[in-house]
């Protein structure tokens, strides 16, 4: 069953056709990669999915409901979480607080005036956050300031913040950009583990073919704002059109 259905999406920035008639469907419990050369419209597409941009035409359905015209926080409440290219975390807060905030968002919704309760007495939320941190091997850094973490740990923390909400769809925008090979491999392992353990559907935008081919079950190739092909990794590897548009340059 398709959890995310993008149909006929167009987006223009002035004279530039960033997205031209994009169709995409992400099946439940798969890892779906979206690849393409720079300027292919990958990030624009992602921004259309999370409510940062509104497409000019077309529809984006998540689990049977349109996400168009909704604010990012509403779309998140529907069950879509996003990991950014550069980790977006609450740098001034501690690691534990960083993970507790999405727990509150999940439990209390987009806004609740809980000014008299104390964070310290929210045992359930705290346990949930600690469990999540344990799952990503960060429990020892509980009280550190998130801003002082290494880049790899920031990525890990951001992932934990998204996962603790138990999203139905996790969007990842180049999760390994700027990482060393060892860190990249760690991230791949982490993502694999997440997918296997939690059955979370993932849509992943990535430049690094190593990452794409070790994770993805479906791949969509974008070029100049239009999907070129959509197929399994095996077929994509040998596809002549893809080689021409993208892999040819990469090799």
């Amino acid at each position: 069953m398709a959890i995310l259905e993008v149909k006929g999406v167009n987006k223009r920035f002035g004279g530039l056709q960033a997205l031209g008639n994009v169709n995409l469907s992400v099946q439940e419990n798969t890892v779906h990669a979206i690849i393409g050369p720079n300027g292919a419209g990958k990030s624009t597409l992602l921004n259309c999915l999370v409510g940062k941009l509104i497409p000019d035409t077309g529809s984006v359905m998540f689990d049977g409901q349109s996400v168009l015209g909704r604010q990012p926080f509403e779309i998140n409440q529907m069950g879509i979480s996003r990991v950014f290219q550069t980790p977006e975390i609450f740098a001034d807060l501690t690691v534990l607080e960083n993970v507790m905030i999405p727990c509150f968002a999940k439990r209390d919704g987009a806004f609740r005036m809980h000014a008299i309760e104390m964070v310290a007495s929210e045992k359930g939320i705290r346990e949930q956050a600690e469990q999540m941190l344990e799952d990503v091997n960060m429990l020892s850094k509980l009280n550190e300031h998130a801003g002082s973490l290494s880049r790899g740990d920031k990525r890990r923390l951001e992932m934990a913040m998204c996962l603790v909400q138990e999203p139905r769809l996790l969007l990842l925008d180049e999760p390994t950009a700027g990482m060393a090979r060892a860190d990249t491999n760690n991230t791949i392992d982490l993502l694999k583990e997440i997918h296997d353990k939690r059955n979370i559907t993932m849509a992943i935008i990535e430049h690094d073919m190593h990452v794409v081919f070790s994770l993805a079950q479906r791949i969509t190739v974008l070029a100049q704002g239009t999907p070129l092909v959509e197929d399994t990794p095996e077929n994509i590897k040998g596809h002549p059109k893809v080689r021409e548009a993208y892999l040819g340059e990469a090799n």
Partner: protein
Amino acid sequence: MLGLNKKDALLFMIVALLVGIAPFLLNPFPEGSSLGQMFNAGYPDLMQRFVIFGILVIGFNILFGLTGYLSFGHAAFLGIGSYSAVWMFKLLGYNIVPAILLSVLVSGVFSLLIGFIALRRTGIYFSILTLAMAQMCFNLAYSVLGNPNSNFNLTNGETGLQVYGNDPQYLMSEGSREIPHLFGLAMRDSYQWEISGWLFTFNTGYYLSGIIMLVAFYLSIRIFRSPFGLMLRAIKSNKQRMNYTGLNARPYALAAFVISGMYAGLAGGLLSSMDPLAGAERMHWTASGEIVIMAILGGVGTLVGPILGSGFIEYFKNILSKINDSLLHQWLSWLPDGLEDGIVWVLHFFVGKGWQLTLGVLFMLVVIFLPGGLVEGGQRVGRLFRRKKGGADGASAKQPAE
């Protein structure tokens, strides 16, 4: 205790103790001695200002310290609170309970309106919007709504709003007091205790304001430690992440804005309760700037910072404006004449009417050398002591800025 953790409870107890014994602390020198004339600050009006401005800045800190939204128009809410309170004195009578309730309510409504508009923008644009709207309030109070000859004279313009003999005062009965009071306890009443040259004044208005400040302080600690407070800190830290975490930042920021506006209104109502007179100058943008300075000087985003900052400024404002040239000559008489005159000539600009210059310099020094304000200064001193005592363990005692 009171649902606070040990550290916060201790902090609260210390503040409560200081508020309780302030009449002694602020009058360390015998009455009438030259040092006493200079440095004693245990007068009712000054002590009242300490705690009332404490309330104001505690509220401001909930907005600025937690969410990072720098409001440059907070004095407007102070003024609105003051006017509301005086109107209650005029219409109902001198009991301060309705006055304070109305001032909190009205400033809450105003901050909801102003916050709703201003919070559409962030950063410098938010500050400018609040500044503009506060100046609009000031002008409305100073001229538009304050023409004594019109039928609709809300603020009485330059003269300031005050209670006149022909005001209705519907709830005034025979024998009720003609000055602001709390069920008969007049704010102006003081008990004076004279003991071998020392004179200590215990003022009703001060203690009432002090208790209200402690309540306000307690609530602010609760807000700091609540999930709501955590969300406000999240706004300051990363609004983008917050939005993508399924949280709507706008109502959180607006709630913080309204709460801090109500704190300011409460402070305004108390100011009028101590002295039933409200003037437009309380809403002037320089007054708003002073609030910002108090908060930064004390330590933004810390719990006690606002109290320290407002106390510090009010205290030195009082002392510096009392110093004059002849006093300076007296202090520096041990210097050679020419040098003495020279130094007095320079210092002249920094004392008396020039007290703002000194506070400006102090503010600059604090911002440059102690970006965390007086609280950071205190922490540094504390760490220094700990390092001397405990050696290695002092260095590892890294405290979050609370």
